[in-house]
């Protein structure tokens, strides 16, 4: 009943997007069984290629972008564009990967693809130095600003323990499809930043989260708007001094990518790639306990691809 519950929740918080999402979700139900490859994987892990090629390979296993994006839909792509540093420092999502995702969305028939993040540094410089603006615009994506409170609207967080309300960026609320593209890296207080932690970039008041049990808030918000697809970029991984990093010596080349619909599963796999025990990360544990996703990777159908 998980999926139905998921659809119901979506329907309650946005009336306009609700109808289309319902239809989109229903189609996904069918496509899963009618897929020519048989049972679709719950999680795809790819290794050994450039970020954008790993994405293509992974998406092939998941039935292509067409199983996520339908003709005429609006797509919100949310990479991590937190810091005013160059791509080599691994603090932001791989820009070429973002460009490729945008490209595949349009190929699948998307009407519009919006890319944005609530940056930590001055947003214009950050969009630019991360090179995400360049690659996304090259593929005709719209870079939406997210630096003013006016872009965010109040949303109720279902069954939130600490976080009951949050102001969410309107690009997420008005889009049919939400693709979450975190970069995997070290994080001082959250230990690890991946799919669930990346959603802090679609809300306005992050201070509230920090003030009221960060891990609980991250897990609470995971029930609010589950991304339709999570692409964890572990091409360059910041192993220390995260999430901002100080120098290139914090970064290691891992050439890995994890793709899944399930944030908890994606973060669990990402933690293992990073080299930490997933159960040691509180927000993953809380989210799994709330059945927001699967933490036991043995229960999942995982496809492993090496390029």
């Amino acid at each position, binding site marked *: 009943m998980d999926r139905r519950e998921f659809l119901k929740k979506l329907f309650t918080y946005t009336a306009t997007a609700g109808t289309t999402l319902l239809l989109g979700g229903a189609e996904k139900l069918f496509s899963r069984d009618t897929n020519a490859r048989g049972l679709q994987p719950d999680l795809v892990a790819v290794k050994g290629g450039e970020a954008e090629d790993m994405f293509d390979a992974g998406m092939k296993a998941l039935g292509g972008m067409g199983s996520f994006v339908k003709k005429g839909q609006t797509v919100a792509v949310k990479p991590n564009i937190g810091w005013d*540093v160059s791509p080599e420092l691994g603090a932001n999502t791989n820009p070429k990967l973002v460009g490729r995702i945008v490209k595949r969305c349009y190929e699948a028939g998307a009407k519009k693809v919006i890319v944005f993040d609530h940056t930590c540094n001055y947003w214009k*410089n950050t969009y630019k130095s991360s090179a995400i603006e360049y690659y996304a615009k090259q593929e005709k994506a719209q870079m*939406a600003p997210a630096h003013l409170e006016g872009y965010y609207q109040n949303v109720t967080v279902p069954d939130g323990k600490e976080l009951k309300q949050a102001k969410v960026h309107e690009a997420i609320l008005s889009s049919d499809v939400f693709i979450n593209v975190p970069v995997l890296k070290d994080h001082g*207080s959250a230990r690890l930043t991946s799919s669930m932690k990346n959603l802090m970039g679609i809300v306005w008041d992050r201070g509230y989260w920090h003030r009221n049990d960060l*891990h609980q808030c991250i897990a609470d918000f995971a029930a609010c708007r589950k991304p339709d697809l999570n692409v964890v970029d572990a091409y360059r991984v910041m192993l220390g001094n995260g999430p901002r990093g100080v120098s290139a010596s914090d970064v290691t080349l891992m050439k890995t990518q994890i793709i899944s619909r399930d944030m908890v599963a994606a973060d669990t796999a990402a933690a293992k790639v990073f080299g930490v025990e997933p159960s040691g990360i*509180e927000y993953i544990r809380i989210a799994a306990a709330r059945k927001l996703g699967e933490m036991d990777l043995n229960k999942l159908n995982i496809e492993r691809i090496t390029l």
Partner: protein
Amino acid sequence: MKDRNILKRIRIILSLFMSLLFIVLFLDIGSFSSLGVKVLAWFQAGTSFLKFLTLGIGFGSCGFILVFFLTFLFGRVYCSGFCPFGLLQDLFVFLFKRKLKYIKPYNGFRYLFLVIIIVSVLSGSMILFGLFEPFSASGRISVNLVKPVLLSVHNSFISFLEYRGIYDFDKISLHLLDPGVLFLTFLFFIGIGILCFFFSRLYCNLLCPVGISLGLISRYSLFRIKIEKERCTGCGACEKICKAGCIDNRNRKIDPDRCVACFNCLDRCPVAALTYGRASSGLKTAGNGLDASRRGFLIFLFSSLLLLFKSFPLWAGQALPFLKIRKKYPVTPPGSQGISRFTRHCTGCHLCVNACPTRVITPSLFSYGTSGLFQPHLDYSRGFCEYECNLCSRVCPTGAIQPIPLEKKKQTQIGNVNLVKQNCIVYTSRTECGACSEHCPTKAVFLVPYKGLFGPEINPQICIGCGACENVCPTLPYKAIYVEGNPVHRRSLKPAEKKKRTKINTGFPF
């Protein structure tokens, strides 16, 4: 005669062109500002003279020499063609369209006022100079009054576009300015409007330190406006149009000292008794003439100017000014080198406030006590100083914020971090937070294990005082981490680079 007044036309075209440039300079953020300042502020006599005192002679700081030279040749063309505050007053005068009259020179008052300004600058206070220096006054009016209005219009238009799903343009966040600064600037603006209504450009000769100084040069200018006494019928047409109030119709005299070279009068004379030409070729009586006491006064003035230049280094070790805010010292922008050096050179033009992308540079009335008015400081409750940015140092027209390369800026400690553990969430609520450490660009704030959690610790040696930690610290009502300004900026140590943890991952770990 009207179509013959080419000088006036040139002046109007020039001033309109300059106005356009000033509008772009004062309203633009970032990209144009640094170039705009180089071009536009270069020949602002007041600020460039100050820059000369700050940085010594150089191409960037010799604009005032050109202005002095132009004044010596053609009179105060700066005042009507290049001074943004003069242009603003001209706009007022144009809108009011009042009949004007001769105004007495009030030499006693204005020279005394100039001396007071010079003495106050010498004694380390920028209050008077900053308040009356025309370029800075215009900057404040643009940034504090005009810009918010224009931005509101701009933002509501963008909102409309975004409502239609167009995200190609972006809103610009409005300055949250100090209400005191706003009020005083507004008062100043209204005041100048009233002054213009009754006395036209009286400000330029009575209160403006640049205008009064240039007047001392223009009284010797080679070219000037003269009255041919034989022709003059005393009709007073010229006096009624003179913005500076320097045409004395009764005595048939023009005071070259106070003439702002607007050339409005030239085509007004029905008998063509007014001409613009070589001073010596005209009648000797045209000028004001210098008597002995005035000469003495001038010598005093110039010697005090000389003293101003000469004595500057002597004041460098002056005691720190009284500070009103709760923190002991305010934080000055990187490149300013320290509080006392900054306050002695900043006129409060607010170009840095305008250029700052994060709005952390905030003007305030009395952060520096009696050292200056309107001088900005870094307010970390509004934002923090971006690690990869040195825009403020590139736009400062006076050299109060000296140009500082990014690499140097990243090791310049403008303030230092202080941790108040009894306010910190990790210690009070026993939950994770770490926001301060997250944002720290040098990891001067780092996390250490504390009862199963991670709590912040600080390493002040590598702190640069950017204020990111203070800005993002979520604790209420008081911050758990804050930056205390460094009265004199220091050099911070480079953060240590840890060896790379190389990790060769052959398979999938799951």
